[in-house]
């Protein structure tokens, strides 16, 4: 009963932090708007730069989608701690009786929420521009572990670089190599769900992403706690 209550409280605090970030995002539009604009422009630029034919469209669209999400999310991760730093609100979080890991995972949850919203707008844009067909259910199965991986590693590296003077440079240097397995998995599995009839073919890539999500989750929660304690 005690365990149930404490697990329940753990998730309650995660949602309290995510809810606060959502409220702040509605007011400030610090993250979703710039990330969407950036990702949208990348998609449009690729649309003009690459001559997609019926034979090549399945090869290039997965790359365009995940490259635009990757670079767009980087713009967002540079801004996720802005509101926390403004009036020392982050220190307020640190003095409250919740674990540092709860703060980290709460921020991960809110960043995941933002990325889901952006992809939910971006995918229909891709479908219209490149005239492709995608099963929504398959796309959700591929996108959730991919976006979770981006959110976990992006939040950790955003926290590491938030007090650095050159954070705009540091974040990509740390973030890009770390998410290579996620990008590889997401591009391959998106290609497979576009070309193969079933999700089964892309399952090994989805499992790979889930394994990396678990690793990022543990390393992220421990790493975040260590960074904050120092």
């Amino acid at each position, binding site marked *: 009963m005690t365990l149930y209550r404490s697990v329940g409280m753990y998730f*309650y605090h995660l949602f309290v932090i995510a809810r*606060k970030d959502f409220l*702040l995002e509605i007011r400030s539009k610090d993250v979703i708007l710039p990330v969407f604009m950036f990702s949208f422009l990348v998609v449009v630029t690729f649309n003009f730069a690459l001559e997609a034919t019926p034979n090549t469209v399945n090869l290039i669209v997965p790359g365009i989608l995940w490259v635009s999400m990757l670079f767009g999310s980087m713009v967002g991760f540079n801004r996720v701690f802005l*509101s926390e730093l*403004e009036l020392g*609100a982050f220190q307020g979080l640190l*003095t409250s*009786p*919740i674990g540092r890991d709860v703060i980290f995972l709460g921020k991960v949850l809110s960043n995941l929420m933002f990325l889901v919203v952006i992809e939910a707008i971006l995918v229909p844009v891709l479908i219209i521009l490149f005239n492709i067909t995608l099963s929504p259910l398959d796309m959700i199965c591929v996108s959730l572990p991919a976006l979770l991986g981006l959110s976990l590693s992006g939040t950790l590296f955003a926290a590491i670089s938030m007090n650095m003077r050159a954070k705009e440079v540091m974040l990509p240097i740390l973030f890009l190599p770390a998410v290579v397995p996620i990008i590889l998995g997401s591009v391959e599995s998106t290609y497979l769900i576009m070309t193969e009839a079933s999700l089964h073919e892309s399952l090994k890539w989805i499992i790979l992403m889930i394994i990396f999500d678990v690793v990022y989750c543990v390393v992220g929660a421990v790493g975040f706690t260590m960074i904050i304690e120092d």
Partner: protein
Amino acid sequence: MNSLLEVENLTKSYGRNRVIDNLYLSLSSGEIVIIRGANGSGKTTLLSIISSLVSSDSGRVKILGNDLKLNPHICRSELAFVAHQPFLYSQLTVRENLEFSARLHSLKDINSKVLNKTSLIGLSDRLDSKIATLSHGFIKRVAIARALLHDPKILLFDEPESGLDRESLQLFEEIITGELAKERSILMTTHSPQIPYQGDVRNLRITKGMLVDDPL
């Protein structure tokens, strides 16, 4: 008297600069301690260590008998820190900020607690104002309301008089008097010779990282 806060053999250095050096401090229930010291003497660092914002190099902090490093959650639930920064979100309203803090402390009956504390601190008519639209003095009041929300046993104030006008200082003194009557303890730092409280206090001075009695 029961000791609510015990600091033993505390040490903290920034690079080669030892800011806190084998510092001892004890704070009893219903007691107010005021620490004075020059800029850079370690006043804020001491409060930051007690509130677990900064980790010490060595030594021990015990809050209501709980070791801060072993039971940080219990310790943090028993204290509140009003620092130079208000620890608030500028894009949220006073109510939203206080509700957020109350949820982090797992409080029940949040609405009535928020109304009670904002009324105590003269913020009832500003509940739905965004923090970004408030003056420095009102932001400080919100920070104090946020600190009082979960009824902490220990209140830490870092130079609370800065930025407050005469009316706010008077209100602040009333709040301190009220909180001390509830068997709470207050640890306050200042470098002002005049403090916004006229009752019985224990005056200390921090020099070379150590606390000594300050006869004023």
